[in-house]
């Protein structure tokens, strides 16, 4: 999680090259936080006679338990601790010491089989070292760091356009993918602008502005587009779902027709048909499936409805929701015989028709009638630009925009077209595309300053909404009231309560928990016949709703690990084997058995951490370490291919037996023991998160032992053990969320912030909203510093 400076250094020539690349990401902060408590203890103890010293507390353990292997001669694992028998190194080589402390505390070192130091020894050892650091840290001046100007990423752009002009524009479809850093795609440093993207911005500005004003007239005659299975222009997702990608060229109403060939038995029940746009359900209706009684050569019926569709490329899906009947068929051939079944084979769009839907955007922009003269034009542009730039605007901002209106007039166009042109300009301006924060002395790394109320407002809205500040927030900031007592808290509460805070689930949780990868995973239909878009969407919904619940209801973070409830609809409940849930709607379900609990039993997570054909204990173990405990395993050493499971899976014996064989190699074992223990702890869930007792013909052995020696027999027991690690989990989610909130990687100097938040959460029982509030109030979120002109490092 911590940006590993050395990693960058190592490739920047000179002195750097003699630093050895540290394969292990910087140790999470767990050591330091505990230190705070233990350090106090140490200080109290210090009143006593024996003030802890290096020679008393550290040196003996080091020599006795470490140096036997990590000495000049053996340098086991190319680690030599001999030079560390020296108090000075505690501060001088802090990163190295942090690894030592972590290994010792977690019980990873000394390795199994060797005599372990007593709890007291370990305690004294860590307390001393960490209190040393404490003391050192006290003298460092707090540093808020600095965030690089952030370009709006695709989602932020989409949302900002939505809030600014009420135009439904899907940047995700149009713009190149945003690169991500630290697992998030809102990191200032990696959000670059390529010529292609610039091109896209220009074109988008043209379409959006004209759509906002409803400028381009609808075609005289509606156009018809048909997508039919005959012409292979619809994709069959499964027996009950067809999908087609269709470009809607105008905002407007469209006549949608769904073709439904076939019929079912006389007594067949009606089934519910749904119609989705880009995964969002936009129409649902009951459909008769029993013979119509009318005489058809081939039984066939149609469903018609008229609906408003926004311009853009969309993926449309039509399908039967929770249709059990199709499962009764063996071969597809039967399922698609119109004598036996009723199914879908066609989607047709006719349109556009003028819409009754009032053009909200137009109303928002044209606050007065532009033809009444220059004053109104100025008024319109001022109002719009203030919101687009998320700050009050000056004459200097507006004058050139008025110029565009004049220009259009010269071209013989209307004032309105001129305004449209001005909007185009606004939408490609750096003030709109970037979130740029000013600083009194930008080149002075020591000068720390508050971000302005306006910048703070944007930080807040883009953190919680992935979108622009709304009028209330902007007004508060303009009035300089945002930082008055209680206001910020109130705003956080308000923003969280607003639906737009769903963005936090989609973008923060979606990336933190890698749920977004649900779109790219492709479980093997042979192995997992139940997999399909419906199940995928249900999986996504479960985690999303669960996250939102913990957030909005301000539940404790512990529920992520071991929540005794979840959110299910019939399909997902069936998948889980949980009875009594019917219908497509999601609802809260209390968990009665201990098969499930917390997010680690969510099908979404279990699926994205599997291979298409099978589970992967390694990936899952890595997943837990990385995303839950904030201690990602080191990458395998150079040239060593990752421990190969597919080979194992391909050969005899259970995956576990196979991998344990493979793991006789010490190099691999050192890390895989940690990873695989957690991974195998989840083996009861198959590649799509279904509960199972056997893997193929082999019984599943979930049991494992944590580094601290506690062992478990079932996933539930493992979850309970994970609860012991709340400090680690809290630290992990705090690090992730702070990264996401700031849009930059965390640095050493951010550790205090994370520690402080961790302590506060622990003291208050881990309520989620406290985490959000603490982040908003934190030093790095409230302030920024300048930056020394950096000399470009050459390799």
């Amino acid at each position: 999680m911590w940006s590993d400076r050395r990693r960058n250094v190592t490739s920047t020539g000179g002195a750097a090259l003699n630093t050895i690349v540290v394969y292990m990401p910087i140790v999470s902060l767990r050591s330091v936080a505990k230190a705070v408590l233990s350090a106090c203890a140490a200080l109290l103890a210090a009143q006593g006679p024996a003030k802890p010293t290096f020679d008393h507390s550290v040196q003996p353990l080091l020599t006795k338990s470490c140096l036997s292997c990590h000495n000049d001669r053996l340098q086991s694992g190319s680690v030599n601790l001999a030079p560390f028998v020296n108090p000075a190194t505690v501060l001088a080589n802090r990163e190295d010491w942090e690894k030592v402390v972590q290994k010792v505390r977690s019980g990873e070192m000394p390795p199994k089989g060797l005599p372990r130091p007593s709890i007291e020894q370990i305690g004294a050892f860590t307390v001393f070292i960490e209190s040393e650091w404490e003391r050192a840290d006290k003298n460092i001046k707090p540093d808020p760091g600095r965030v690089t100007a952030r370009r709006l990423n695709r989602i932020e752009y989409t949302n900002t356009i939505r809030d600014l002009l009420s135009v439904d524009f899907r940047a995700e479809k149009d713009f190149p993918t945003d690169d991500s850093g630290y697992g998030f795609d809102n990191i200032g440093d990696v959000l670059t602008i390529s010529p292609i993207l610039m091109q896209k911005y220009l074109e988008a500005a043209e379409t959006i502005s004209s759509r906002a004003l409803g400028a381009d007239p609808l075609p005289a005659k509606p156009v018809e587009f048909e997508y039919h299975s005959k012409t292979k222009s619809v994709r069959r997702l499964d027996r009950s779902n067809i999908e087609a990608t269709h470009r809607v060229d105008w905002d407007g109403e469209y006549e949608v027709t769904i073709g439904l060939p076939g019929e079912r038995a006389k007594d067949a029940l009606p089934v519910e048909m749904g119609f989705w746009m880009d995964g969002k359900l936009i129409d649902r209706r009951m459909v008769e499936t029993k013979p119509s009684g009318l005489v058809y050569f081939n039984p066939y019926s149609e469903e018609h409805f008229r609906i408003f569709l926004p311009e853009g490329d969309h993926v449309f899906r039509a399908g039967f929701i929770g249709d059990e009947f199709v499962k009764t068929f063996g071969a597809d051939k039967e399922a698609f015989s119109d004598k036996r079944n009723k199914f879908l084979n066609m989607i047709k769009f006719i349109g556009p028709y003028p819409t009754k839907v009032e053009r909200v955007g137009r109303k928002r922009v044209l606050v007065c009638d532009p033809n009444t003269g220059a004053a109104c034009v100025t008024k319109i542009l001022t109002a719009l630009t203030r919101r687009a730039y998320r700050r009050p605007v000056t004459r200097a901002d507006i004058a050139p925009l008025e110029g565009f209106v004049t220009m259009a007039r010269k071209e013989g166009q209307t004032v309105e077209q001129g305004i449209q042109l001005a909007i185009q300009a606004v939408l490609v301006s750096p003030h709109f595309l970037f979130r740029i924060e000013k600083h009194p002395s930008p080149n002075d790394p020591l000068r720390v300053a508050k971000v302005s109320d306006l910048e703070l407002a944007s930080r807040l809205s883009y953190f919680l909404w992935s979108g622009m500040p709304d009028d209330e927030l902007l007004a508060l900031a303009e009035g300089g009231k945002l930082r008055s007592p209680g206001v910020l808290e109130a705003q956080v509460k308000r923003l969280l309560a607003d639906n737009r805070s769903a963005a936090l689930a989609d973008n923060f949780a979606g990336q933190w928990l890698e749920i977004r990868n649900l779109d790219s995973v492709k479980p093997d239909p042979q192995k997992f016949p139940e997999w399909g878009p419906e199940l995928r969407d249900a999986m996504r919904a479960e985690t999303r709703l669960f996250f939102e619940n913990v957030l909005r209801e301000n539940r404790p973070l512990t529920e992520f690990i071991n929540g005794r409830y979840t959110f299910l609809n019939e399909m997902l409940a069936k998948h889980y084997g949980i009875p009594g849930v019917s219908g497509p709607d999601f609802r809260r379900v209390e968990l009665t058995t201990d098969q499930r609990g917390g997010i680690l039993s969510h099908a979404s997570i279990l699926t994205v951490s599997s291979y298409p054909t099978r589970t992967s204990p390694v990936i899952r173990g890595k997943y837990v370490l990385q995303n839950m405990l904030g201690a990602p395993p080191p990458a395998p050493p150079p040239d060593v291919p990752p421990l190969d499971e597919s080979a194992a899976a391909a050969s005899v014996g259970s995956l576990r037996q196979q991998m344990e064989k493979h793991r006789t190699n010490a190099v691999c074992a050192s890390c895989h023991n940690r990873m695989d223990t957690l991974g195998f702890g989840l083996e009861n869930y198959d590649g799509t998160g279904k509960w199972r007792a056997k893997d193929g013909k082999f019984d599943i052995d979930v049991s494992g032992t944590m580094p601290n020696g506690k062992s478990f027999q079932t996933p539930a027991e493992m979850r309970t053990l994970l609860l012991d690690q709340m400090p680690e989990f809290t630290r992990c989610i705090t690090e992730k969320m702070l990264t996401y909130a700031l849009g930059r990687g965390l640095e050493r100097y951010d550790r205090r912030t994370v520690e402080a938040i961790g302590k506060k959460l622990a003291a208050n029982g881990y309520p989620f909203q406290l985490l959000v509030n603490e982040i908003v109030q934190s030093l790095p979120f409230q302030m920024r510093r300048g930056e020394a002109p950096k000399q470009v490092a050459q390799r």
Partner: protein
Amino acid sequence: MITKKTLSRRTMLRGAGAAIALPMFDAMAPAMNSSSIPGKAPIRMAFTYVPNGLDMRHWTPKQDGAFVGELPKILKPMESMRQDMTILSNLTQNNGRALLDGAGDHGRCCGAYLTGVQPRKSFVDIKAGISCDQIVANQVGGQNRFPSLEVGLEDARQAGDCDSGYSCAYTNNLAWRSETQPLPPVLDPRALFERLFGKGAALNPEERARQTKYRRSILDFVTADTRKLQGDLGPTDRRKLDEYLSSIREIERQLEKAEKDNAQVNPGMPKPYGVPADFAEHFKLMTDMITVAFQADMSRVVTFLVTREGTSRPYREIGIPDGHHPLTHHQNKQELLDKVTRINEYHMVQFAKWMEKLKSIKEGDSTILGNSMIVYGAGLSDGNRHTHENLPVMIVGGGGNTIKGGRRITYRKETPISNLYLSMMDRMGVRIEHFGDATGRIDGLNLA
């Protein structure tokens, strides 16, 4: 007698007293076929990259020199073009190796592939080098509407770390505009179509002229605005905005270009909608458009990232449900190896169709393929062990009578693949002395 010479390139030094042949650099002077000579058919250069290494057992022809008998399995689809293709053996990408940076061969080999430098190991602070295609684009691309085209078939990864500490930027992109700015490939056929032939295909000349005029003044407006802004920003923020400005300048250049030759190019195909579900279909759409771009000389430089390096995409199209990457760690298990081979073949089948198309289009007394250099290859040779030497490299096309196909040329071990790039840049009329880790140019391409 030239033949003898090349033969002796391989056999020289055998035992005592054999004559030494001096290493032959291409006799060809760059000016001779510089693409910039008017009237002369342009030379095109393209790089087609496939991930996770190849099954080398079915790639390397049995013997050096002219192809004899059947082509190896993976190359079979190219049969009808065996005289147009050359297999280059023993080329190495040293900067793909760990070189003290530890794990992450996938991220590294892709970042180093066309840049010839060791990519910086970082999530965020990405740094590689200017890729050879962009050097050409910068120097001679100006005469085309698009100095270069970047194309791909697989959507960039959404979340998570891409390869043990290497930013996804290294595995998502082939072309690097600058040390720090990779160029994302266009994935959506419609996006590529609109990039090449314009959204406003419908606009009439006056409207298009007006649009250009408007766009111009908008760009002027934001440029001015940005300059003002930059004044009171710190170094990094200023650099961000520089990047933004340089993109603006590129667009302005394209506008000019478009104005000069506003002859509308006929796409010869309907505007595609979105990304087809079928891989082969997607491959065809994209390569068809590249073909048009070559034909109409809209661009001469293309990088084509077939799928992301390290991708775990399954290939149900050919009945392979397992991910590509896990498969390549086959540990020499036959069934896994076979699946890898089949994926390699499947890619080659699609590629061959494209080459056939290029070959079918006449151009002067030659064909587009005859005037092209299309490299097909991967950043790893053995995906199982992540080896960076003896990479699979095939160059297709005559490069305007400067490349003689129909054979395998084996170079000395550890020969930097950058040497090949230098020789290709020569043919594009870009003569530079040093590139990446090149130790010189490769010899014999143009000699039978």
